[in-house]
């Protein structure tokens, strides 16, 4: 860990059951009933459940019928994105009174760089306590993780959830991470974990003492090194106040499941492609620079698959090719959702030229 990065103070502020909290503000009676935002329709999925509903096992991304089975009295509330966005803006306004070093990671999560913060004698803990008190007055509660880097701040924000905070000082990062199961480290997906488990790696501690070249053989050169560094608490990513759009995508849940690829192709042509083009600013396809294109299918058992191809410009015909490639993975399961998107090239990437070392 370099001097510079271990001197930082980085927090992740995560609004607790955010959509549910906003709904309670709109309809206070909801506070005493288990309810879920989303999932009410025939094919909907729960976006957020309040803590009463979570006691029954209702979770985000759970299909509505399953949630209802777990909690028969569950109330379903229609999502109201406009009011969530408005509240998220209000939260940002409060944060901006403390620092402008804020990176919204999503509608309800914010990275905050408090390194230069002067409030409360520069104490990040006290500043976060104050911020959370202000939010509570606004009617939403938040949990926070505080450390000198983003990954640990994010993991720590889950420790005292809801409405609590947790600090991991720089010199305790290694020990803190050591006892966590590997799945808590972002980036170690289910496939990698299977491979790591098979090789005897279960806790972060196992990685910390491992030979990085072994991890590289297991996961690939890049991912292996990245996991090794993450487990040793290396994460130099800055809090990015100006956010570049990294990808543009659209997806839609179908009114009825598709069993034929013909239906999917028609849907692509008539709905998704026009909607993607609109989202990308209405430019002609040949004028849209990209790094790659992706297509996603979600099946009626809620498993999903994605296929991607490298491309310099967005090509509509490539989406048909990706669809043909992804479709057989359905293995006769009907398709309930289709999404398409493309990743944007980083304008400054690859400007530094490489020495011909090899």
């Amino acid at each position: 860990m370099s001097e510079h990065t271990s001197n930082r103070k980085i927090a992740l502020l995560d609004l607790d059951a955010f959509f549910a909290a906003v709904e309670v503000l709109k309809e206070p009676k909801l506070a005493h009933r288990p309810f879920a935002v989303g999932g009410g329709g025939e094919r909907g999925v729960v976006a957020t459940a309040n803590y009463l509903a979570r006691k029954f096992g209702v979770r985000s991304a759970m299909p509505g019928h399953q949630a209802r089975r777990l909690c028969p009295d569950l109330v379903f509330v229609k999502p109201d994105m406009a009011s969530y966005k408005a509240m998220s803006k209000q939260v940002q306004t409060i944060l901006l009174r403390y620092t402008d070093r804020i990176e919204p990671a999503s509608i309800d999560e914010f990275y905050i760089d408090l390194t230069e913060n002067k409030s409360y004698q520069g104490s990040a803990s006290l500043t976060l306590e104050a911020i959370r008190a202000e939010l509570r007055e606004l009617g939403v509660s938040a949990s926070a993780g505080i450390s000198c880097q983003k990954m640990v701040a994010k993991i720590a924000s889950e420790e005292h959830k809801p409405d609590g905070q947790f600090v991991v000082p720089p010199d305790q990062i290694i020990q803190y991470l050591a006892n966590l199961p590997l799945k808590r480290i972002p980036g170690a997906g289910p496939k990698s974990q299977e491979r790591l488990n098979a090789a005897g790696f279960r806790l972060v501690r196992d990685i910390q003492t491992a030979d990085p070249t072994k991890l590289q053989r297991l996961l690939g050169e890049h991912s292996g090194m990245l996991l090794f560094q993450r487990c040793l608490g290396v994460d130099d990513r800055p809090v990015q106040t100006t956010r570049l759009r990294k990808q543009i995508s659209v997806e839609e849940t179908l009114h009825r499941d598709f069993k034929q690829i013909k239906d999917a192709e028609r849907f692509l042509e008539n709905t998704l492609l026009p909607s993607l083009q609109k989202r990308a600013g209405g430019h002609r396809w040949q004028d849209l620079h990209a790094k790659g294109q992706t297509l996603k299918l979600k099946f009626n058992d809620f498993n999903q698959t994605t296929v991607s191809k490298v491309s310099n410009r967005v090509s509509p015909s490539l989406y048909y090719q990706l669809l043909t490639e992804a479709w057989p993975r359905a293995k006769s399961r009907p398709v309930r959702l289709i999404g398409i998107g493309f990743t944007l090239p980083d304008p400054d990437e690859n400007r530094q030229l490489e020495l011909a070392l090899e």
Partner: protein
Amino acid sequence: MKFTISRDALLKPLQVVSGAVERRNTLPILSNVLIQVTEDSLRMTGTDLEVELVSEIELEGATPGEVTVPAKKLLDIVRSLTEGADVKFDASEDKVVVRASRSRFTLSSLPASDFPNIDEWESEIQIQMAQGDLKDLMEKTHFSMANQDVRYYLNGMLFEVNDDVLRTVATDGHRLALSAVSLEQSALPHKQVIVPRKGVSELLRLLGDDDAPVSLSLGQNHIRVTTGNMTFTSKLLDGRFPDYRRVLPQGGDRIVVADRDLLRQSCVRASILSNEKFRGVRMALSPNEVVLTANNPEQEQAEERLEVDYSGESFEIGFNVTYLQDVLNAIQGEQVKLTLSDPNSSAIVEDNADDGALYVVMPMRL
């Protein structure tokens, strides 16, 4: 085990040895320092299993024994004692008592027998040189080492011995630094080893600037540097270092000679308004003038004009300004020479009066 030593004699060696102590704490005993005492000597060892540092100090009338104690706590205690104080150590069972005038500390200890040793190894080449020369050789290149690169063999410094020359090379894939020194020995066999980053930084901390002799030993998997009473041993990085000779550009015909300090100051100022992440500056050459410009995403701009010796045609090239600054800080002469060929090919930067070091910097696309 029992001994007395003056605080001032203990502090420096303890500081050096603590540098090697494991900071990640993956194995409890690695945060300890090993203390071994004979009747007339004290030997302290710190290690993280990759780098080992040993220092020896003379003692009088000590009671022999060996033990390990927490390194950082002991260092903090010794550092904060008053200058000139005498420090008494007394070890029993699982405790070590440290006394100095009216202070008394009881530290927990772990058995010395659990302290890990670096495996036995054999030296193949031995070099004698002045410690200042070795330090200078490393300081000229260390900043170009990669940091946490997936090409792990770049996360260190290449030491190359050949006949009567010792060279160090470091590269992160964007720039390369090369420095050489002539030895008083000759006919040494050709050998290359890669010393890991941590070893390089600990060695730089321990070496002084003077002519005191050091001996350098290279083995199959280890390097050892011995000064008067300190011994530094590091494991080597496995892997093949890229052939630096292939990277040195040939035939650059645009030659710029500039005042090193003026160019360095211009870079410092221009860098203020360069993109924080990519650090690009544009270097525009015209006869006898260089103009550096930098822009950031907020559309702010810096422009620096500088008189230089240049007689070629007008030409523009981009660089990461940090790479230029690093080189301009490492060079000590009054003038630097830049040899360029085209905006997509590497540039050579060197001291105009000294060919002991050479720097290759890849440009950035403008």
